[in-house]
């Protein structure tokens, strides 16, 4: 008997969404096959990897990681430029950790200033991440959206509690892209996309953040949720689930014990920065294989590794 390929042709396709403007704009999504299955057909745009930076000196970051950015941590725009010049990410994720009401509680005005400076300093697409506090994020995102009109940033993210304001300001008024964030559940993801549509936000302007988890910490739920979403998007041609997926990896992997335990606490485990990068890289790969079209990492080494990984897995690398 001769070999017969059992590939399935799908009727649906993940939509292509463009972030940023000008020469450095990047497109994500566009696949009509399962993630990384380039041998089946069109994998669309290779997944994009962003580096995370924050608007304050990140006290909780690993010292060895902060050392890489020595001298630029105090100035977020300098930091962004340094990251772009030295590590060549596909985009920058600017996270407003300093705006957190339980932390420094920086004012929206201050954040807007930072956002403007960062946007002026780099020409890569920006992803604007907030505090996880829905009320503060609502105000923060609206103001930043206005200040960065024309930049076509991705706002990460709109949730059920604040999607109306964030969607209206971000996408409708100032023409940015919005990531709709839900908690590891296909039905919730679908529902929020539909609500966004009803608000008037076009599918072309929508991305999904369907939840995130570090490997070992409920990751199986995330991976299965992503599998189900992609199978529905491709197989059932469900247009309410055909948005590309962005997954923040960094905010999950650096706090779990495998990464964060000190060498005094776990002497057998060895170098903690080494553990943290390995944890970030393992989670990043697992998320990409599950179908993320963009991910956010923290360590430049993770970024470099995942770029090599993607180009080789899609068959375009040197290997």
């Amino acid at each position, binding site marked *: *008997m001769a070999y017969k390929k*059992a590939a399935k042709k799908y009727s649906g396709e993940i939509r292509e969404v463009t972030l940023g403007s000008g020469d450095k704009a990047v497109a994500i999504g566009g696949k009509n096959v399962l993630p990384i299955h380039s041998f089946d057909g069109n994998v669309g745009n290779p997944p994009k990897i962003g580096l995370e930076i924050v608007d304050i000196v990140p006290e909780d970051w690993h010292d060895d990681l902060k050392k890489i950015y020595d001298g630029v941590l105090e100035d977020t725009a300098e930091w962004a430029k340094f990251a772009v010049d030295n590590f060549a990410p596909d985009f920058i994720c600017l996270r407003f950790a300093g705006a957190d009401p339980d932390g420094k509680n920086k004012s929206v005005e201050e954040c807007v200033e930072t956002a403007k400076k960062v946007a002026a300093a780099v020409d890569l697409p920006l992803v604007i991440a907030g505090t996880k506090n829905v009320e503060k994020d609502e105000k923060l995102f609206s103001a930043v959206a206005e200040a960065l009109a024309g930049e076509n940033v991705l706002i990460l993210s709109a949730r059920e509690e604040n999607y109306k304001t964030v969607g209206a300001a971000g996408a409708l008024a100032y023409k940015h892209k919005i990531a709709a964030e839900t908690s590891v559940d296909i039905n919730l993801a679908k529902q929020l996309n539909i609500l966004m549509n009803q608000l008037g936000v076009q599918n072309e302007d929508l991305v999904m953040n369907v939840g995130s988890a570090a490997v070992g910490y409920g990751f199986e739920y995330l991976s*299965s949720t992503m599998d189900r979403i992609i199978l529905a998007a491709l197989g059932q041609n469900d247009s309410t689930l055909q948005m590309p997926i962005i997954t923040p990896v960094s905010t999950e992997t650096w706090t779990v014990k495998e990464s964060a335990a000190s060498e005094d606490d776990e002497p057998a485990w060895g*170098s903690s920065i080494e553990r943290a990068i390995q944890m970030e890289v*393992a989670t990043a790969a*697992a998320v990409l*294989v599950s179908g993320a079209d963009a991910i956010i990492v923290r360590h430049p080494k993770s970024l470099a590794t995942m770029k090599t*990984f993607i180009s080789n897995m899609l068959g375009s690398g040197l*290997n």
Partner: protein
Amino acid sequence: MALSGIEIFKLTPRKNCKECGFPTCMAFAMKVASGAVEIEKCPHISAEAKEKLAEATAPLMKTVKIGTGDYEHALGGETVLFRHEKTFVNKTLFAVQFSDAMDDDELARRMENIKKVDYERIGEQMHVEIVAVKYTGNRSRYLDIIKRLKELQKIFVLVCDDVDAATEAAALVKETKPVLVGANNDNLEEMVKLAKESGIVLGLNAPGVEEMYALVEKTHQLGYKELILNAGSENMAKTFENAVEFRRTALVGQDRTFGYPSIVFVNELAKGDSYLQTALAATFIMKYGSIVVLDDITYANALPLFALRQNIFTDPQKPMRVEPKVYEFANPKEDSPVLVTVDFALTYFVVSGEIERAKVPVYLLVPDAGGLSVLTSWAAGKLSAGVIANAIKSSGLEEKLNRKRLILPGKVAVLKGDIEEELPGWEIIVGPSEAMQIPKFLNELN
């Protein structure tokens, strides 16, 4: 591929003698097809027909066992492509690779690392299961290394396409049911002969999917089915394609030719880049690698990889839970604090592990939180001030304690006020948000 009623009908003698209890052979065949009756109920059925039916109803992907006794492991036997459809049954095994080109220091270092990385995570002992030994031409060194590796008591994967070397190597370890990865189009007959004689599992090498398919068919013709397919060691994209095609052809294409476990040499794909090796290992845990071969094992790569494997190979329908009740640590007394957590097994094991590390006497109250994590159960309304207060009241702790302190997980600090109202006389303390901070927190608590 299950047979249809018509196909089974063709296997019957078509005598319509009714001895099976059905009026016609056709009626009988229909019942057999639906699984309601055994083919044996027809006394006239031929042995050949029985075998055909058995073949047709065998699982699409074979379960292959390697190792013996306490070290035996099953590979393959999967029935689905995605874990939400059905539990993945046989977890990916990890191997560390050695070779005859390796000097004694490197050999000792890797052996030491294998011994060192042996730890418990959520009730499962984590360690590398396999040593892979690659032959590069130095026969006596190869055999010597195999002898020395026996001390580790791991399953052997011999990576060797030289028939003579493989024969000698197999003789050293054949009683442990090893794997021999080395059969290819040129040496197949001899390798199959060796595998049959020594009862070992044979790993097949082919440059691509179609060549592999032909090679498996040839191996079948030689009468051997204890097989593992090498998905690759040279090109990442190609290796991924192979791993997916093997699994998909077997399960979706319902073609048992590819219904075997796979082995992936991520160490060679990564060419010495340990981060890339981890990214690739994670990939093949998720996508169909039965054995993943690494260059080396350290806690840095083991912690994420074993954690991911533990996640992926679990029942997707029901979260693992622990019994809701009060757990005691280090003989708690009437002034020991009460920590609260949830009945999600992952959370419980992480938290109890840290409490043990702290060596401080405490009670750990686990209410019925629906088997969900702290924030999930809180968001789902299953871990509320009321739930916690009721669990305290029915626990008998109020009567037992003369100093009443309740420690909340930091992630649900918002519950503090409400619990204070529900539990007068209790001091409600917000604990840290990550369990790893529990030892420090408890040791500083007074």
